[in-house]
């Protein structure tokens, strides 16, 4: 009898976050004894769509996908569902498509809110803030930005964002943008970054000016960031449990594909938390830091 085959698709393997996600999908698929077709969206909605189309021709039994864009990938996911292939989405939730088997995720807006709240907690009396945004137009960038502003905008007089620029999720750009910000505005109290790479770039920029007491917040809880948190270089990073998301999603998909077991919950939402020095043990990838 044939082994089941599932498609595991992530937005872009250029980012360590998704490499981890796909690795976890791979590991869980192996544990469940199913074949995995891997797909890298290469940061392009048409590419991820094409991968889904190719997988449907190959008659995969289920799809586990973290969509690059929740709107643009909807038609492809719809197509899969119409073809009778169960779909489980991870991380980013697709609205308006009927029949998605389940969604496992941690909302990026919620993550952004958590990040900002952690900063607020650290500066109860207000703060001057730099904000480094992600790639303009990219889904996570939009959502994380929204989360940060949801928290800070109502407290505008206490928490001023004095410098807000995109650094395209990239470390090198974050470094030069932060340098420019420091030169123009002097030292801020905190820097909120839409991912860890940018946060680590900001760390370097501050270190170069000896501004070691600026509190810098990252997002994604990558092992490298966890080390920086441990060493006190980062104040915190947002953990969305991508590994747990991925494993759960694969379990749900395989269970359904095997014998039509409906998932207990259609919507598994993990609450994002901010990892600081005191709760490092909550971080999913702490083990990778040794």
């Amino acid at each position, binding site marked *: 009898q044939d082994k089941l085959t599932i498609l595991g698709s992530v937005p872009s*393997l250029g980012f360590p976050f998704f490499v981890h996600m796909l690795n976890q999908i791979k590991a869980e698929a192996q544990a469940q004894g199913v074949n995995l*077709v*891997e*797909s*890298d969206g*290469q*940061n*392009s*909605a*048409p*590419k991820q*769509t*094409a*991968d889904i*189309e*190719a997988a*449907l*021709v*190959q008659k995969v039994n289920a799809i586990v996908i973290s969509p690059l*864009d929740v*709107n*643009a*990938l*909807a*038609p492809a996911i719809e197509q899969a569902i119409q073809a009778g292939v169960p779909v489980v989405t991870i991380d980013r939730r697709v*609205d*308006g*498509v009927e029949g998605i088997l389940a969604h496992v995720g941690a909302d990026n807006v919620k993550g952004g809110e958590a990040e900002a709240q952690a900063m607020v907690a650290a500066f109860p009396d207000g703060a001057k803030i730099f904000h480094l945004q992600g*790639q*303009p*137009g*990219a889904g996570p*960038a*939009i959502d994380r*930005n929204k989360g940060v502003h949801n928290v800070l905008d109502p407290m505008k007089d206490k928490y001023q964002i004095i410098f807000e620029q995109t650094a395209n999720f990239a470390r090198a750009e974050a470094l030069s943008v932060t340098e420019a910000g420091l030169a123009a505005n002097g030292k801020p109290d905190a820097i909120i970054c839409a991912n860890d790479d940018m946060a680590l770039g900001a760390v370097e920029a501050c270190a170069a000016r000896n501004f070691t007491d600026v509190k810098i917040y990252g997002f994604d809880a990558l092992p490298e960031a966890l080390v920086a948190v441990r060493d006190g270089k980062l104040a915190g990073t947002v953990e969305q449990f991508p590994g747990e998301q991925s494993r759960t999603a694969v379990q749900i998909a395989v269970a359904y594909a095997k014998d039509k077991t409906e998932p207990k919950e259609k919507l598994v939402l993990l609450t994002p938390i901010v990892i600081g020095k005191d709760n490092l043990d909550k971080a999913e990838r702490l083990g990778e830091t040794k």
Partner: protein
Amino acid sequence: MTSTTEQSERSGINVARLLMSFGPLMFLALLIVVFTVLKPSFIDPINIFNIMRQISITGLIALGMTFVILTAGIDLSVGSLLAFCGMVAAVVAKGGTANTLSLSTSGAQGFGWFAALLAAVVVGALAGGVQGFAITRLKVPPFVVTLGGLTVFRGLTLTISNGGPISGFDASMRWFGTGLIGPVPVPAIIFAAAAILCHIVLRYTRYGRAVYAVGGNAEAARLSGLRVDRILISVYVIVGFFAGLAAFVLSARLNSSEAVAGIGYELTVISAVVIGGTSLFGGIGSVGGTVVGAALIGVLQNGLQFNNVSSYTQSIVIGLILILAVAFDRWLKSRVRR
């Protein structure tokens, strides 16, 4: 030089022509055979139609790019322009910038697909015209003008949409991206029709021949009485038009216009044209070549994905095969000309 040579010459023309575009074509055939042997379902009609649909977006732009490159120009702005025209189409289709995020087929409040299509291609053509104007009047090299365009149009797109996508079009519009005529996807039909049209224009009209002449030697073309500046502007209008058309089809296909659409397309599109044998120094090339070039890239990507080749390895293999395909073409030409 008597009748015998003349006869052989005449038939020689067609054979030579065929052989000219033979390299990439043979390579394409080879790839298809290899992928089919590896996994026979590769040539399932469904998959073939998938590939056709996939290449239609960049293929459409590549048609326009063929005109530009034939004049020894280049257009780096196409990816951004695609996003810009897509956003314009979405605004027109939805009647505003508010993203209703409704994926239901009845979500549209706007002016219908025809107005959206018209807006996309007109805006594309205008944007191309402005760039063409800067190239000919301000004497700024195409590379610089369209590099500027690349960032300007992206910025405009983000400004219009405030970074987010605009999604949810009505069924009549979505048909252009997802519909079928018989078994054939609509985007593939649009691409094929456009390719035939472009082929006729370039090969059988005075305008088309003037494009080749300008690319072959702009100064000589001017001395021969061609209106070089007008022709140069026109090719940027054409590529802009096609970027608009491609944007419309892409938005219809994804049911969404994204501000980040088309990033990096300029390189894919230019590769399709160049792999198809069009010279970046102008004057040499054909639409047929571009279609083959686009198909080569599409088949390669699909075939590797189909065989579950890891994404990193895919990059390596695609890069090497593109180089090989062109090397093979050059080698064949150096043999065949006798």
